[in-house]
């Protein structure tokens, strides 16, 4: 390593040391977020808030409601007298489904082959409404099957076997993804200011007239942050592993190796922004706005990429977080051999290098102009 790179590097380390508050945030924020996200995010919907209008008022009707409650999926959150009250109940968000047991329900049960109840759903949250609809439908199907036990039985046993995450714990899914998102954001925010700061405070000219080459400036400015981000990422992974017992089935060394590559790509992205904007404010805002939502939504962190429209799938190809997500889940949850994951890693290397080259070119233009 040349002395010139070292000089820039030392200068950048000084910047980091002079701002201990940023440093504290950089280490504290990820831990806090892993704690919050790990504990809060669950996808299973329980306790569907059910309203009841019992127009029948027979033992059979009460039995039906009790049966639904004892299935543990529903909770009666209110009883209404008339159907006109449903609108207000929905508007006050007191319930998301209303079961109407019509007059004659109990009488009809024994005499007719099919008796109807009505269910009104608040469809505003399509997701929850769909789940509620399926739960209610399944409840009535299985109730009907049970009532006619001798005659009908599902002759096929569904034997599900869940791999990699047998208890279907959402922590195992969310936390490795969160590590990726946090690393991406912190790296981009850290380096996006490095060059912009010089430009804003006017010290850029000094560096440009010094005998340092463009690539050396970039190398000197990136290296300290690689170290910082690496320690940060390591801390989060170890924390997640200890606190939430997120499984770690693969080789840690491979993960560390790939983490370095990912950091390189993220930092290149920060440098890329930094080289193009005139001041820190723009650099930071641009880094934030361009990485926050895409890293969360277009990486497969929450929404499976297979389900999104084709055009967006193509667009997700330029989101670095997507590739590291495949790697980290592959190694931690699936226990994959690191060598199998060379493809996403190669992309990260290429993408990062491309960004660095563009940034260097941009510097050279600055030098000449």
């Amino acid at each position, binding site marked *: 390593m040349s002395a010139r790179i070292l000089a820039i590097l030392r200068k950048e380390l000084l910047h980091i040391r002079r*701002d201990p508050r*940023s440093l504290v*945030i*950089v280490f504290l*924020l990820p831990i806090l*977020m892993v704690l*919050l996200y790990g504990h*809060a*995010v*669950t996808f299973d*919907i329980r306790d569907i808030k059910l309203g009841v209008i019992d127009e029948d008022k027979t033992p059979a009707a009460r039995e*039906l409601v009790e049966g639904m409650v004892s299935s543990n999926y529903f909770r009666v959150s209110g009883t209404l007298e008339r159907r006109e009250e*449903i609108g207000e109940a*929905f*508007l006050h968000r007191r319930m998301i489904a209303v079961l109407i047991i019509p007059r004659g329900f109990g009488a009809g049960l024994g005499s007719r*082959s*099919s*008796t109807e*109840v009505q269910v*009104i*759903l*608040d469809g*505003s949250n*399509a*997701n*929850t409404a*769909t789940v509620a609809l399926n739960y209610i439908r399944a409840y*009535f199907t299985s109730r*009907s099957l049970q009532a*006619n036990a001798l005659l009908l039985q*599902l*002759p*096929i046993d569904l*034997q*599900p076997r*869940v791999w990699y995450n*047998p208890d*279907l714990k*959402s922590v195992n*899914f969310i936390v490795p993804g969160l590590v990726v998102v946090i690393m991406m*954001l912190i790296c981009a*925010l*850290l380096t996006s200011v490095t060059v912009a700061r010089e430009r804003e405070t006017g010290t850029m000219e000094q560096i440009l007239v010094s005998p340092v080459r463009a690539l050396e400036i970039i190398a000197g400015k990136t290296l300290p942050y690689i170290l910082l981000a690496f320690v940060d990422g390591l801390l989060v992974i170890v924390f997640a592993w200890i606190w939430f017992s997120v499984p770690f089935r693969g080789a840690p060394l491979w993960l560390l190796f790939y983490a370095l590559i990912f950091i390189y790509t993220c930092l290149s992205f920060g440098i890329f922004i930094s080289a193009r*904007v005139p*001041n*820190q404010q*723009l650099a930071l*805002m*641009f880094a*934030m*706005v*361009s990485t926050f939502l*895409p890293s969360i939504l*277009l990486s497969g962190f*929450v929404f499976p990429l297979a*389900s*999104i429209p084709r055009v967006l799938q193509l667009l997700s190809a330029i989101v670095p977080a997507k590739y590291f997500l495949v790697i980290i*889940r592959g190694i931690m*949850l*699936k226990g994959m051999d690191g060598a199998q994951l060379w493809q996403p890693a190669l992309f990260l290397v290429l993408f990062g290098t491309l960004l660095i080259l563009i940034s260097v070119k941009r510097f050279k233009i600055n030098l000449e102009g």
Partner: protein
Amino acid sequence: MIRIMHIIKKEFIQIRRDRSMLAILFVVPVVQLLLLGFVISSEVHNIQTVICDLDDSSASRLLVERIRNSGYFIISAYDQRPSHMQEYLDNGRAAVAVVIPEDFNARLQRGERTALQVLVDGQDSNTSTIALGYINGILQTALTDAIQTRLQGSEAADAVHFVAANFRIWYNEELKNSDYMVPGIVVFLLTMVTTLVSAMGLVREREIGTMEQLLVAPIKKHELLIGKLVPFAVLGLIELAFGLTVAKIIYDIPIAGNLGLLVIFALVYLFTTLGLGLLISASSGTQQQAMFLTLFFLMFFMLMSGFLFPIENMPRTMQYVSLLNPMRYFVIVVRELLIKGAGMHHLYTQGLALLVFGTVIFSFAVLRFQSRMR
């Protein structure tokens, strides 16, 4: 008053001159809303599936056909070797593997029970649960169909008692996900942009040294503050209008409620976001610090607002924590008002919460700002 107008004018000129800033404030959020709305309203489908049909009978082929036609699964491979299933899951070529045993049809014919083995990549717990639910549903329909054919015309039909649920769905008959999710993303973008500009605005003047100029100028501190924040509030409202227009045109979201009421709620909410930004600005020494603090709040807001992760599903303690998140209330207001046409008397608790948050955060920020400026 005239002095305030001057500051406001200065800020607007600054914003207008700065093309890249305008791009960040308007173009990027609108483009993201346009694209990402599709992502967050997507439901799980296209699940890559490998089929191992050891039976290869009419019954097993019918089942595979049902799986394919359900629209949820894409059959990416057929493979007769059960031992190879793990490989498909390992290298990610399939997320679900269905193994139909050799004697599947024979047992069904004899009236015996048989088993269907389904291997699921459980990494994404949400998707895997949904996938298993889909398969279960497919089996249930298959069963109901079989029963109906068996019962047709037979005497047994009268002995069977079904209770059928007859569904009616309000507000959103087709259960379009975007109606609910897209307003959420509008709120998030509004929160992100207004907090950002106000967090960066003041700390920047201090870091690059123009704050002194403003302080020695013959204006009072509160005038400076109002002059700085009013343009941001206007920006926020324009942003909201922009967002809702895009949401209406592209995603055809309903607007059932009173938009004037929405603007009033938005104004109250802006006190919170701008106040928070100001607080961050006053508590940070550098722009980078301000940005990291903003990041912290945005991640908290995103998690605890019900925008992506439903709050009702969270553990009780976390539901209480979410009450500390002002964005939570505004998300509810926007969704309820747009979709259901909720009015003031339905939303006053949310409004009250927003008012309290706005007042507390904003006054705290102003105090902090004034003590920092001394």
